[in-house]
C-alpha cells in the first residue's frame, strides 16, 4: 500500500481536486515504507518496520489557506478532508506572503528509485547486523550499528493543472566499533540508493581497523594544524559543510542576518568568497546521488550551481521571495555536489608532511552566525600523519572554525564520495583551529 503507482496516486488526487469548491486547491500524497535494525554490545537491541500513506489537502479562498490531512482514501473520507481544509481556510487570516499555485510544469525523469532497496526484508536486516557483529566479535571488538532503509513516493496535483509524481529509495548504514578496554573507537558510514552496492562487512572492517588502530592515543597540543577531513566529517549528521549549505537562503541574506549579507544592505551574490577550487552544485539526475525532481511546491528541480570557482553564483529563493525580488524561484535542493580531483584519502595522506586525519566530527553547533563560526569535536578515529604516513592515534580535539575560513585554506581536494545523499571529496585544509583537548574515546 505504501508505494502507490503514478496512476493509483493521481486517480486519488483527481477525485480530491474534483471535490474542491475553493478558489484554488492542491493535494499531495506521500507514502513511505521504512525498516530498521539497531545493535550494540554485539547484540541486536531494537528492530522495527512501518509503512504509511498520507494525503495533504490545501484549500484557498483568496489569500486565506487551510490545510487538512487524512490517511484513508475512500470517497467519503476524501470529501471530508477537502471540506475540513475549506472550513479552516475560511477561518484563517489572510496570508501577506500569498503566491498563487503553480500551473503545469515540465519535470526531469527521476532516477532515484531502486526496486532492490524497496524489497528489503526483516531477515536481510538481521543478516546485516549478524555479519557486522561477527566481523567484530572475531577480533574481540564490540560493534554498535544502525541500518535504516526506506522507499518513498510523492504525488502532487492542483486545480491549476499541475501534476507530478516521483519515487525514491535510500539505505543508511553506520557502525561504531570499540575495543574491549574502551581505549579505541572507529566509525564508518555509507548510504545508497541501490542496496546491491551495499557491503556491510566491508564498511564494518573500516570501522574495526580504525578502532584497533586508535588504541592508546597520544595527546598533542591544541593549535592550528593541517587536517585531512574525510567526507563523514563534512556532510554527515554532524558535518562541517552542512551549515554552509543551510545558509544559502536569499531571504536571510537580504534581511541582513546571514554571513551572506552585505554591509550596507543586499547580499553577496557574485562575490568571490572561497578558494577558486571550490565549486558546489545540485543535480537531481546525478547517477551517484539521484534525488527528487520537484519540491513540495511542485517547483521543478534542476541542475543548479551555487558556488563556482569560489564565487557565489546563486542563492535559494522561495516563491514569495523570488516574486518580491523579481527573480526566478528555486526548488529547494535535495543534494549537494562538491567537485574534486582523483586523489583518495590515502593519496592525500601520502602527500602530507605533518597533519591530522579526522574520521568524524561530533556535536557541531553554531557559535557565531555572523562568521558562521562553529564548534565541535573530533571522534572515532583521529590520527597524526608524518612524512606521508599515519604515525599514531591522537586524543580528540575540540575545534572552533568557520567553514568559510576553511574553504579559503584548501591545500588539496580528493575524489568525491557519496555521503548523506551528497557527493563530497575529502579535503586537506591548512591552519584548522583546534582549541582544546578531549579525553573522550
Amino acid at each position, binding site marked *: 500500500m505504501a508505494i502507490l503507482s503514478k496512476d493509483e496516486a493521481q486517480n486519488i488526487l483527481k477525485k480530491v481536486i474534483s471535490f474542491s469548491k475553493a478558489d484554488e486547491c492542491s493535494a499531495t500524497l506521500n507514502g513511505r515504507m521504512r525498516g530498521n535494525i539497531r545493535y*550494540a*554490545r554485539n*547484540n*541486536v*537491541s*531494537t*528492530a*522495527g518496520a512501518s509503512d504509511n500513506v498520507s494525503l*495533504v489537502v490545501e484549500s484557498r479562498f483568496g489569500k486565506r489557506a487551510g490545510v487538512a*490531512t487524512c490517511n484513508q482514501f475512500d470517497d467519503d473520507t476524501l470529501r471530508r478532508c477537502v471540506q475540513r481544509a475549506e472550513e*479552516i481556510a475560511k477561518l484563517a487570516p489572510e*496570508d501577506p*506572503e500569498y503566491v498563487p499555485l503553480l500551473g503545469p510544469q515540465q519535470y526531469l525523469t527521476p532516477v532515484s528509485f531502486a526496486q532492490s532497496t524497496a524489497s528489503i526484508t*526483516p531477515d536481510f536486516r*538481521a543478516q546485516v*547486523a*549478524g555479519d557486522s557483529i561477527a566481523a567484530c566479535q572475531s577480533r574481540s571488538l564490540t560493534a*554498535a550499528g*544502525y541500518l535504516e532503509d526506506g522507499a518513498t513516493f510523492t504525488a502532487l496535483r492542483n486545480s491549476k493543472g499541475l501534476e507530478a509524481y516521483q519515487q525514491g529509495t535510500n539505505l543508511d548504514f*553506520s557502525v*561504531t566499533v*570499540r575495543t574491549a578496554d574502551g581505549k579505541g573507537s572507529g*566509525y564508518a558510514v555509507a548510504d545508497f540508493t541501490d542496496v546491491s552496492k551495499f557491503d556491510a562487512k566491508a564498511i564494518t572492517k573500516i570501522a574495526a581497523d580504525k578502532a584497533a588502530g586508535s588504541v592508546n592515543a597520544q595527546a598533542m597540543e591544541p593549535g592550528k594544524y593541517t587536517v585531512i577531513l574525510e567526507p563523514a566529517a563534512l*556532510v554527515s*549528521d554532524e558535518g562541517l559543510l*552542512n551549515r554552509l*549549505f543551510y545558509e544559502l*537562503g536569499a531571504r536571510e541574506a537580504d*534581511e*541582513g*542576518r546571514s*554571513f551572506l*549579507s552585505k*554591509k*550596507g*544592505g543586499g547580499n553577496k551574490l557574485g562575490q568571490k568568497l572561497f578558494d577558486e577550487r571550490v565549486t558546489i552544485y545540485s543535480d537531481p539526475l546525478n547517477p551517484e546521488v539521484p534525488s527528487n525532481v520537484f519540491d513540495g511546491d511542485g517547483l521543478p528541480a534542476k541542475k543548479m550551481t551555487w558556488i563556482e570557482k569560489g564565487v557565489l553564483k546563486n542563492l535559494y529563493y522561495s516563491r514569495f521571495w523570488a516574486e518580491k525580488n523579481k527573480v526566478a524561484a528555486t526548488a*529547494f535542493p*535535495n543534494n*549537494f555536489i562538491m567537485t574534486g580531483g582523483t586523489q583518495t584519502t590515502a593519496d592525500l595522506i601520502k602527500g602530507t608532511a605533518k597533519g591530522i586525519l579526522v574520521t568524524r566530527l*561530533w*556535536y557541531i553547533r*553554531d*557559535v*557565531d552566525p*555572523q*562568521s558562521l*563560526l562553529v*564548534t565541535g*569535536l573530533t*571522534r*572515532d578515529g583521529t590520527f597524526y600523519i608524518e612524512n606521508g604516513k599515519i604515525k599514531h592515534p591522537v586524543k580528540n580535539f*575540540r575545534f*572552533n572554525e568557520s567553514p568559510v575560513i576553511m574553504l579559503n585554506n584548501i591545500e588539496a581536494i580528493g575524489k568525491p564520495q557519496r555521503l*548523506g*545523499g*551528497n557527493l563530497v571529496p575529502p579535503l586537506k585544509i591548512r591552519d584548522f583551529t583546534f*582549541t*582544546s583537548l578531549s*579525553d*573522550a574515546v
Partner: protein
Amino acid sequence: MKRREFVGLTSLAAGALFLPSIPGFGGSLVDPERLLEQVDPAVKKRMADAALNAAKSAGATYADVRIGRYLNQSVFTREKQVQNIASGESYGAGVRVIANGTWGFAATNSVTEAGLAKAAQLAVQIAKANSKVQKEQVQLAPQKGYGEVSWKTPIQQNAFEVPIAQKVELLLAANAKALDNGASFVNSSLFQINEQKYFASTDGSYIDQDIHRIWPTFTVSVVDRATGKFRSRDALSSPMGLGYEYLTPKAVDQVAGPAGTGLIGYRNSYDILADATLAAKQAKEKITAKSVVPGKYDLVLDPNHLGLTIHESIGHATELDRVLGYEANYAGTSFATLDKWKTKNFQYGSKLVNIVADKTQPGSLGAVGYDDEGVKTGQWDLIKNGVLVDYQKIRDQAGIVGQDHSDGCCYAQSWQDVQFQRMANVSLQPGTAKMSVDDMIKNVDKGVYIAGRGSYSIDQQRYNFQFGGTVFYAIEKGKIAGMIEDVAYQANTQEFWNSCAAICDRSDYRMFGSFFDGKGQPSQVSAVSHGSATTRFNGVNVINTARKIG
C-alpha cells in the same frame, strides 16, 4: 541533504511550512475541537487485553502495550503576521514483547482489538527472528502490577481549551513590543503537547495518564545595516509541564536578576510581553557591547543557562544505557564509568554539588505518575556531596549493575516508537545558606554573568564542553560592569563541577527546560527540566568567539 535537516529547530521561520517534520509535532492535522476529546479507559483496556493475550499465545514471556493519543498544537508568527497554525493528532498503539529472551516491537494505527492482536503477533515474530543473532537474554527487574490506576499533570488550564485567536493575539502583542523597542525582526511561537497514554502489561498494570506540556518562545533580531552586524536574543522562558496558566504572569513567580541587568527570572509563570520588550533592548545593546578578553574568569550562571550545562554534563553522562554502550554509535558513551561509580568516592563535583534525579517534580517536563514501562516514578540521588552515587536506569538495565529495581525513566515519543531509557529531570539542589544573586556577585572580583541558552557542544563521553549563552555581563570588583559579547566557556566536566564555589538559596531556584532532547536511532525526542539556583564556578576558561570572514 535531507529536507528535514534543513528545517532546523533553531530556524523557526523556516519551520512553519514544514511542521510535520518537527519531532513530536507530526500526526494528522485535525480540528482543534478534537484536541479536547478523550478515549474511554474501558475501551482501551479491552484493546490492551487483546494485545497482551495475543502476545502470550504467540509465545511471549512478557508483553506491554501503549495505546496513545498524542496531540499537539503550534502557532508561529513573525513580526505582524501569522505564519502557521497547526493542530495535530497521532493515535495508535505500540506492542513490545520478550520472546526467546529477545525484545520485539510492532506498532499499528489500527486501534481495534484485531489490529492490536496483529501487532502483538508481529512483535513476537520480530523478537524470534532477532533472537537468532542474540547473545545475551533480556532480564527485567521485577515489577508488581498496579491494577487500574491513573495520573494527570496538575494543570490549571488546558491550553487546548484556549481559543487560537487569543494565542495569536498574545504572540503578535509580544512581537509588537519587540518591534516598538528596536527589533528589526521577531519570530515567536507557542508549542503545546498533550499525551493521552494508556499502558498495560502482563505484570497486571492498566495505567491511564494525561500529560501536558507548553513552550512559548521567540527570537528577536537587530540588524545594523551600516556595519553589517546582526545580533539576536532569544526568550528567557522555559518549556514547562504546565497548562496555559504559564502565560499569565504572577509577581510571585518572578525573581529579579542581578542589579544593573534588568533581567527577570521566571518560575511557574512567564511574562512574554515584558521579556520581548527587554529582548529588543538587549539585542540592540549586543550590537555595540565590548568583545570579551579571553582568559580565566569566575562564572556566575543563571538557572536558565546552567540547566543546559547540567543537562549535557551530568544528565546525559549518568544515563546507564550510555555508560553500558547502547548509544555508542550515535549519542556516545560516558566518562562516568561503572568502575568510577563502584569506588564510591568518585568526586564528580565539589562538596556543594548535590544532584537529584526526579520524575515527580510539579511543573517539570519530566513529571509523570508512571513511566512508559509501567514503573511508578520517584526521585533519587545521582551525586551526593560531590560523589557519584547512582545512574538513571530502566527495567532491562538494573540487573546489569546488580540492582533490583528500575528508576522509572523509560519513555517513547509516540505510540509508534519503542520506549527506551530517557533522562529524568536532573537538578542541582540549592544552597542551604541564605544567598541572593547580588550577594554572590559582590564577592566576585573578575567574572562573567551568563543568562539563557546559547551555543552548546560536548564530546561523546561528556568530558569536554563549550557553552555560550543568550546574554553576558562583565563582573568587576563585585559589580555588574556592562554587557559583553563573543563569550563561550570551555571546560572539563569533572574540573568544572569541582570548581563550584557557591550556590544561591532556594528563593532563587528555577527550572530550565529542553523541549526537543534527541537520542536514539531512529532519533526520538523527549522533554526534560533541570532546576538550579544561580551558581558560581571559579577560574573557568573563557574564549572569544569573534572572527572576521571579510
